[in-house]
């Protein structure tokens, strides 16, 4: 009987060895050094510094925006708390409407930008952490207004 038990233990031992051999831990990646990039994406790289426009108003607006980007924003850094930034808002507003209405939309945005109070209760957050405030809401077209509550985090524009 003793001999049989020894044989039995050997079988179990061999089985264990086989299991270890066949199913080793393969998730080494889990424990290896992670390659994480800590570089922040710069909005300057996404900017389109062109003067092309569909009309004279758009060309004038682009001149102002490009000058602001080149001489101030690129040097000062990405400081606007909104998504899209005020200059991009101006650019998109003029593109969506006209130079006159776009300027009024920008003036309103600029005023709201100066208000430091109640932003968290007023605007939803963009995934980038900025306050989401797209120009579509301000073109005075009720059909374009889709209200987003401030508790929502917007992933894409």
């Amino acid at each position, binding site marked *: 009987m003793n001999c049989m*038990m020894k044989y*039995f233990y050997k079988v179990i031992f061999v089985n264990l060895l086989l299991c270890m051999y066949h199913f080793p831990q393969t998730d080494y990646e889990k424990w290896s050094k992670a390659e994480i990039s800590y570089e922040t994406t710069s909005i300057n790289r996404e900017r389109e510094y062109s003067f092309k426009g569909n009309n004279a108003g758009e060309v004038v607006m682009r001149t102002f925006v490009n000058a602001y980007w080149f001489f101030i924003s690129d040097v000062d850094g990405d400081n606007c708390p909104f998504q899209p930034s005020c200059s991009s808002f101006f650019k998109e507003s003029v593109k969506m409407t006209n130079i006159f209405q776009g300027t009024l939309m920008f*003036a*309103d945005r600029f005023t*709201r930008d100066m208000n430091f109070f109640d932003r968290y209760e007023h605007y939803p957050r963009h995934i980038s952490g900025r306050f989401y405030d797209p120009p579509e*809401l301000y073109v*005075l077209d*009720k059909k374009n207004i889709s209200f987003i509550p401030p508790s929502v985090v917007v992933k894409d524009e």
Partner: protein
Amino acid sequence: MKIVLLLLISVPIILYPQNEITIGYFNINSPDNIKKFANFLFCEKDYLRAIFEYQKYISIVDDDTSAFKIGLAYSRLGNFQKSAEWFKTIKENSKLRSYSNQEYYASLFRNKEYYLLKKIYKDEKPNELQKLYYLTYFFTNDSLPPIIKFIQSFADNDQESIENFYELKKNPAYKNELTAILLSTIIPGAGKIYLKEYGDGIIAFIATSLFGYLAYSNFNAKHNFRGWLFSGISAFFYGGSIYGSASATQIYNARIDFNFYSRLNSYLEEKNYFVPEYDFCK
């Protein structure tokens, strides 16, 4: 001890080996077992797989309960078009017919087919549809029927909530765009204060009046260039304040609508769209 252990392992192996007889006994593809498995998946809320199994069962056995459960499963997955199609397949003489009718109307309602529901109600006047028929008025721009007629189809404990929603739909707390524009024209930023955006209103007032004052003092001091420059900036903020009041009114009103529909939808979800709930998993 070792012998006992060895026996404990070897005896069940000898006594309960898997053979063709046992496989035959537990025929997993028998209609009964398919149904049991489908019911298990349904109760586990694994609706997609439950639908697949129920469809397999229905292809063998004609069963209204399974068809009804497929409808329920689709409804719980949010596919209301499919759920409506399945609820419609329940036969006239089935004991589930009345329930399936209610679920069918609820599916159409949740699929936003309000005008189809109105048409069905006007043509056939089914009792099960009465509540949902009146509720469609909350989601369309049609003029509301009289309040007494509206709430009488609901139970006493629901009437108060429905009456509140009726009042909010009839007289929403909208702000007037023209009033906001006029207020901002008279006092910069006043339109925003009317919309309860106090911070924006005060900033607009300060920006406009500060640059206005700078323009005035520069003109007085004969600094015409600076005078015109500050006048331009002041006009920029003044125009922005008037325009912003108009756009902010639209956003304010959109928020009122959003809050109304959020509350209404939560209430209807809580009430299960006035359809009795079935517990097949007791």
